[in-house]
């Protein structure tokens, strides 16, 4: 990996401070008291720190080592988002007549860009998956694209993968900066910058003072090689390799088999895994009205919900949790490969971590693969 720039940790803070003046910077923040980690608007974070009664260092820290509990998708695809307002207008002179006015969601004229700092490579990958869903096809999703268009992703490689990490299985890597605008690796007491996209050049060129001038690039590069090697050793594998080329076919074949009943037995059909997933994009649309005014909004939805496919007629194509889970895994490891050319799982492991009954998507996929091999033996 070729090192382009180097910035010390101390200077990173100043750099972010500077970036935040003109842009909206989001970064991973940990609440030490509650042990929760999440992406937060830097401005919001500073406010929290100010409000905190205890010393801020004790309660909140910027944290880029651990994965955030939620994936950062909500920055572009919020849990609840207004689509538009509507209003019925009554004519006092002529009460029979009711006019209707629709107000498109006002475009937020943000001066700067949205910058996500400290994104894991898998999360950047996740955002690139959402880009395909919302940006491909005849009709685009303006709400997502509007926010995404003006954004930059600053990704930091994972020196330490976790036991539930499996990005390498699904074709990623802890140092994959393909989807990032700026790619960084934590080395010594700072970050080596190994990728800069054209869009992000100004973030560095306008802030040259924070970047070290005299650096021994070869020494750092050697260091990075070592880090990459040790990281690769640590990554947990539950099985040797995922037959990525074939997985779609294997999944297809599994659909009629009873294997899914077995896999799903312990599942409680909740939405925890969906809502923490960086690539799940399903949503619900609802109207709500008070008096003559109302709003149409969308909110996250999850496919393990029995209401998800329930039609008004009472017909439900997926009434059973095993059918729903089958659809969920296939959506990631089959259908979206066909639709968008990629596995819609980036191996972040969040779903495994949050599952209260230890459902493990790796295990599910492995069971399907093993089942097929057994059948052919």
């Amino acid at each position: 990996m070729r090192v382009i720039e180097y910035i010390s940790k101390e200077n990173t803070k100043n750099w972010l401070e500077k970036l935040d003046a003109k842009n909206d910077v989001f970064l991973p923040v940990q609440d030490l008291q509650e042990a929760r980690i999440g992406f937060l608007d830097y401005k919001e974070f500073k406010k929290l720190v100010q409000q905190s009664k205890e010393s801020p260092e004790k309660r909140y820290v910027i944290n880029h080592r651990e994965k955030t509990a939620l994936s950062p998708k909500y920055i572009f695809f919020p849990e609840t988002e207004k689509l538009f307002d509507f209003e019925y207008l009554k004519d006092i002179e002529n009460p029979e007549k009711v006019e209707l006015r629709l107000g498109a969601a006002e475009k937020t004229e943000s001066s700067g860009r949205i910058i996500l700092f400290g994104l894991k490579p898998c999360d950047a990958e996740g955002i690139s998956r959402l880009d395909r869903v919302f940006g491909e096809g005849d009709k685009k999703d303006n709400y997502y694209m509007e926010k995404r268009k003006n954004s930059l992703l600053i990704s930091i490689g994972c020196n330490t993968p976790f036991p539930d990490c499996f990005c390498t299985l699904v074709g990623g890597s802890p140092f994959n900066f393909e989807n990032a605008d700026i790619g960084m690796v934590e080395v010594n007491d700072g970050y080596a910058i190994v990728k800069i996209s054209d869009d992000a050049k100004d973030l560095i060129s306008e802030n040259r003072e924070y970047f070290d001038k005299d650096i021994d690039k070869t020494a750092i590069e050697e260091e990075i090689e070592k880090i990459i090697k040790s990281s690769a050793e640590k990554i947990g594998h539950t099985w040797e390799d995922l037959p990525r080329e074939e997985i779609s076919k294997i999944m297809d074949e599994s659909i009629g088999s009873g294997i899914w009943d077995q896999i799903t037995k312990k599942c409680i059909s909740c939405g925890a895994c969906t809502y923490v997933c960086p690539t799940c994009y399903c949503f619900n649309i609802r109207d709500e009205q008070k008096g003559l005014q109302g709003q149409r909004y969308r909110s996250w939805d999850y496919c393990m919900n029995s209401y998800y496919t329930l039609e008004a007629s009472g017909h439900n194509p997926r009434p059973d949790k095993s059918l729903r889970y089958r659809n969920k895994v296939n959506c990631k490891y089959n259908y979206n490969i066909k639709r968008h050319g990629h596995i819609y799982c980036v191996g972040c492991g969040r779903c495994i971590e949050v599952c209260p009954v230890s459902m493990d998507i790796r295990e599910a996929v492995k069971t399907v693969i093993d089942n097929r091999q057994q059948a052919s033996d």
Partner: protein
Amino acid sequence: MKDENSYLPEIATVKKIIKETPAIVSLQLVIDDEEKRNDFSFEPGQVGQLSVFGFGESTFVINSSPSNKDHLQFSIMKAGVNTTALHNLTEGEKVGLRAPLGNWFPYQKMEGKNIIFIGGGIGLAPLRPLIMYMLENKDKYKDLTLLAAAKTPDDFCFATDIETWEKSKDMKVIMTIDTACDMWGKEVGLCPNVLESMKPSPENTIAITCGPPIMIKYTLEVLLKLGFAEDMIYTTLERRMKCGIGKCGRCNIGDKFVCVDGPVFSLKELNQIPEPFM
């Protein structure tokens, strides 16, 4: 139209309401915006999303003739919250409309062939624009047959249309009801059974069916038994939909979304999808 908001409906006015059956009404709509109204065109089989603001949005097939520029017609069966709100509309009221969405019947590929339409209850709605198109262009198609089924004589949608079609020489019309009742001089029996007894020849014939899921299931079985090839059978499907543009995820059958890849599928296409569509 690059920056067009795909979720923002056009406002349309209800011009006329027709009560089809006790549970089904047809709404004739006119788009308010003149430019959009004049530009509007659709293909038979395409759908639209109708909103009653404050209640929600649901998908219905456009069932007026594609050549009809006066209005767009949708038929709605009362089932949930939004359909009830649509039923409660009066003429002159406003609704939201996002259309046309989805794919359509490949009517060009059907030229020079016999067509048999099999529609049950409100399942006749998706067939109506196609039937009207084909009747308007009768010279391009060979024999047209319609098998219309309903629970009782009162449950036939588009009764006046069926009557007109019956009288015209361009299409053979067979009507059947599920169980016998007085004053009914036509067929009695479930749609698939009647179809089986009709023994239509699969020779150079395309079958198009739509109706409740259970009817589609058995009708497809009968058609295969009669020797129809999978690519000569078409059906339209429904799923719960929200966005209508392939984003919200819920209307998938395998890797296909009913809202963008459908609602019209040939049986061949459906059988290629690993997830069962029934």
